[in-house]
């Protein structure tokens, strides 16, 4: 066994929410901090195991180097794809400004 990580704090939940592009209300922050702490406490049985020498498994049925033949073929219909977008301009996805205005 090893020491597990420290209990998740409200500030950490707020930080993680920012990373995940989620804006939480104070009430949500409070609720999620408590709930995530309970879930992570349960996960302590994994987090505290000494697993030195055990290889990780990311895929149970791993297959590698999957390549199709390099033959041109039609992709998705552009008009159909763009029709599903929230905002479009000249066959492109349109978004608000990405960077702050130049000084």
């Amino acid at each position, binding site marked *: 066994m090893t020491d597990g990580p420290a209990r998740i704090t409200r500030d950490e939940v707020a930080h993680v929410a920012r990373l995940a*592009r*989620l804006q939480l209300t104070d009430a949500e922050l409070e609720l999620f901090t408590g709930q995530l702490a309970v879930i992570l406490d349960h996960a302590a049985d994994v*987090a505290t195991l000494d697993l030195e020498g055990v290889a990780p*498994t990311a*895929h149970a*049925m791993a*297959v590698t180097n*999957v390549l199709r033949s390099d033959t041109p073929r039609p992709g998705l219909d552009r008009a*159909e*794809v763009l029709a599903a977008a929230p905002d479009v301009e000249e066959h492109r996805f349109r978004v608000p400004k990405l960077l702050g205005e130049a000084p």
Partner: protein
Amino acid sequence: MTAAPTATEVASAVRSGTVRAASVLEGHLAAIDAAEAGIHAFNLVTREQARNDAAAVDAAVDAGHDPGLLAGVPVALKDNLCTRGVPTTCSSAILAGWRPPYDATVVTRLRRAGAVVVGKTNMDEFAMGSSTETSATGPTRNPHDLGRVPGGSSGGSAAAVAAGFAPIALGSDTGGSIRQPAALCGVVGMKPTYGTVSRYGLVAFASSLDQVGPFARSVADAALCFDVIGGHDEADSTSLNRPTPRVLSVLDDGVEGMTVGVLAEFLDGADPVVVARARAAAEALAAAGARVEEVSVPEVALALSAYYLIAPAEASSNLARYDGVRFGLRVDADDTVAMNTATRSAGFGAEVKRRIMLGTYALSAGYMDAYYGKALRVRTLIIEGFARAYQRCDVLLGPTTPTTAFPLGAKVGDPLSMYLSDVCTIPTNLAGHPAISVPFGTDDAGLPVGVQLLAPALAESTLFRAAAVVEAAAPDAPGRGGGTT
């Protein structure tokens, strides 16, 4: 619930020209009209397209062509399977109204076999849940008791099959999302070996765990559907490029000489009635000629914790695509990052937000080794534990779920208690193995109990042979007096 025909019966009658696909469809649409308002199995019933598809099947029969193995069989699709031009929402506000520009491979294969899609079924939002209560369109109710959950996340598909809305439905199973609702609704539900059924067009939740599979009212129907949807697909880079087991042809081969291991860890903590049903199913296999013994795979006790680190980690990455740019909801804001944040905050429900944050945290600097890294190593231990058991056993047996269907609202405020309802199904997802839930009687209140069979990777034939024997011995099997309620 009803005396509705099986898929095998429908396909056989339609192919031989004795029954019209159109009349089969109208019968099922009438069943939907009669009971759907109280159940809410569907997000969308595709009535007109279904009528056109059924007419095309009848026209093929009239022209002397064979429409295929599922000729005229109504099927319901979980609403995370892409259908070209038909809304696919994952029961999330962030995808409300989205019409995919392509069909999932499994949808294409069902249609080519003559199946008639009747609608898109309700689910937990993005398949995150075990009760169908996290759906943005409201919960589905269990057809056996409208005050109880159907299980989840594929609760709409399970309920649709149980209620006689369709003989077959497709679901997806990341941690039990086919088998658990199948058990709670009293139908058959099967999770194939990872990589045997294409994930192309399945909206991703946890890509190393997600697998599409069938719901049906009989093991034979589930086998028929698996044979139709399985097989290599070059559009899915995780699809296994090797022959997929064909299972319909081996259903009657029996279990003589098989060794069945009753998995001790799955019996621990399960309700006594569920344990009793599992033991009775094991006895039925013994009576049919199998050798039955108790086995222990202690590593599965770690599966729940590993799963709730791995699945959210993968989900946090997969769900990054819902950013308000290319499809789905957009909530306007001054700049793109603010727009992304406003869109995701408004579009995702609480359980999805919880899992995205859990996964982001498990992958974040300083915690990745302790959480995600450890979980991947535990996954190795679980695979090794199963491998040990399968040196002695051909199949393993245990409950599908620790309890029968629980009341609506009973677990929504306590995520961990909800997660624990998947404790018997999660280990096979981590191992990539196939498993099936078969109805096996009821509890004292008349609620269905499911028995789960597990097999090694690509041993679907063994799995289905054992499932057929369990089904034939079930207390409410046809010809055994009980009948369905």
